[in-house]
């Protein structure tokens, strides 16, 4: 609770927290917030201006823009949640083992990381999609493949530093087993820093997902997703600019909220930081 209080003490972070929570709630309760089916096509209603029925108007296929925007949050945030969870699971396992075991195991795992770090995200995504076909699963796979190694390297560094701390040596002296040592003394020191990094990266991942969907490599139409919505609307940029504006604004606000929240979390978890951490 002290951490949450410190986190919410800054006005900007408080705003970011509210923004991020709003997007999360919208994603969770999207079907309850709009009575329209986001994929329901009605050509007789296409490209309508905002009305009482369609609060943000309709797109070129007569679908309700608000419903698609709300359901788009599910696709964007859902995919990012899967990506972050997969990256954390993979990198925590590899990074912890490499840092703790050291020697040949460390050398092998780090060369493996180096191999994955050589692939740019978009190139690997196109390569995977070329082989496996377009779709969200392959986009998630591509982003996880190109990002887990960064995290694994950082985690390895943190583990290397933590395992030489005196309290870890003291635990070994007391006869604590290796598994317990890692779970109770090393990982709790690694997790806060990695969570900050992951929060800062949520926006970055979201841009990747939306970018690849915009290029037609990610979520496939007619599924509602913010990148797909921008792609659908690009031919109406001069006549119906609001169709690009709404999903663009949603991406902007969400990415900004998570970035600012990550910044706030970093400051809050830094006990000696100048911005005032929980240790102060």
């Amino acid at each position, binding site marked *: 609770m002290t951490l949450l209080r410190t986190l919410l003490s800054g006005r900007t972070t408080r705003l970011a927290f509210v923004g991020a929570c709003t997007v999360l709630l919208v994603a969770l309760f999207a079907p309850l917030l709009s009575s329209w089916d986001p994929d329901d096509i009605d050509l007789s209603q296409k490209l309508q201006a905002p009305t009482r029925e369609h609060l943000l108007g309709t797109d070129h296929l007569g679908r309700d823009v608000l419903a698609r925007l709300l359901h788009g949050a599910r696709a964007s945030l859902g995919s990012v949640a899967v990506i972050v969870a997969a990256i954390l699971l993979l990198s925590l396992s590899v990074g912890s083992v490499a840092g703790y075991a050291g020697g040949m195991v460390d050398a092998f795992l780090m060369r493996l990381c180096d191999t994955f770090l050589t692939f740019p995200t978009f190139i690997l995504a196109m390569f995977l999609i070329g082989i496996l076909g377009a779709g969200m699963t392959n986009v998630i796979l591509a982003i996880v493949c190109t990002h887990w190694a960064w995290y694994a390297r950082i985690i390895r560094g943190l583990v290397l530093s933590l395992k030489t701390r*005196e*309290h870890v040596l*003291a*635990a070994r*002296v*007391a006869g604590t*087993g290796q598994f317990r040592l890692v779970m*109770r003394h090393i990982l709790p020191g690694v997790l806060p820093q990695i969570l900050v990094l992951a929060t800062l990266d949520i926006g970055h991942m979201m841009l990747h997902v939306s970018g690849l969907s915009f290029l037609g490599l990610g979520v496939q139409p007619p599924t509602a997703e913010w990148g797909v919505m921008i792609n659908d609307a690009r031919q109406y940029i001069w006549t119906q600019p609001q169709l690009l504006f709404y999903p663009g604004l949603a991406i902007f606000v969400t990415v900004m909220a998570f970035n600012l929240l990550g910044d706030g979390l970093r400051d809050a978890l830094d006990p000696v930081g100048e911005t005032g951490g929980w240790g102060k």
Partner: protein
Amino acid sequence: MNEDAVLAVESLELEILRGRSRKVVRNVSFSVPRGRVTCLVGESGCGKSLTCLAILGLLPEAVRRTGGTITIDGERVNDLSPEHLQALRGGKAAMILQNPMSCFDPICTVKSHFLESLAAHGGNSGRLSPEVMPESDLARARRSLAEVGFDSPDDILDAYPFQLSGGMLQRVMVALALLSEIRLLLADEPTTDLDVVSQARILTLLDETRRRHGMGVLLVTHDIGVVARMADFVVVMHKGEVVEQGEVATLFAAPRHAYTRALLQAHLSLYGLAFGDEAVGTVSPEPCLAAATPGPVPEEVRIR
């Protein structure tokens, strides 16, 4: 090897592997008799702490034991499997480290530390959290804390390490070591980071504990005053080798090696005394002890 020795180190050799490998500890042999205190002295960097870590099989990655044998209470550490070695640590032999403030996990309460030690050595705690520590384990923890002089063990158990002073944490570390019936206590400069009042208290505590439990103590220090007060035997290390060892009175009265003489001289000179002065005398550790030991701790400054 002395038959009554709880620890015997024979021809220990340690090598640093990084860069050009070099021997940092060479041909070190000594023993710690049961119920007695052996002090390992020497300047910083002479290999005292590495020797201690080698005894418990906890050498850093970059250091390797290249020769010699270590025997603790009749068990050759060299032949033990990692599981047996883990059971030996905290079970038969415990170690008190130099800086008590950094030897405790800052995000765990003292009770968590006890729970962990008990889980490793026959307690009933297993995977439980500190909130549901079994009564039998809690009683052991309380008994151990009371033994090192805490009047209200429950308050200490609920405290986080940063809420306790260095001296209190050092006593908690001794209490953790006493959870099992240990035969050997390694104390690596246990008073270096403490003020003189806490130093005196910890040394008294170590001595009382040693008498009560009859364990052998290997006390690593570079403080000759501590040696004079505590030691039965002294092992002097210099540049990774044992240059002289013997009973404390003999060694203080007639140091044979130039380094031992220099060590005694350096210590006495801090107090304006000179080794070999008639005024000081050279027949007992008394001048060193008198020069360095603080007086009795006044009641009003005693800590809980």
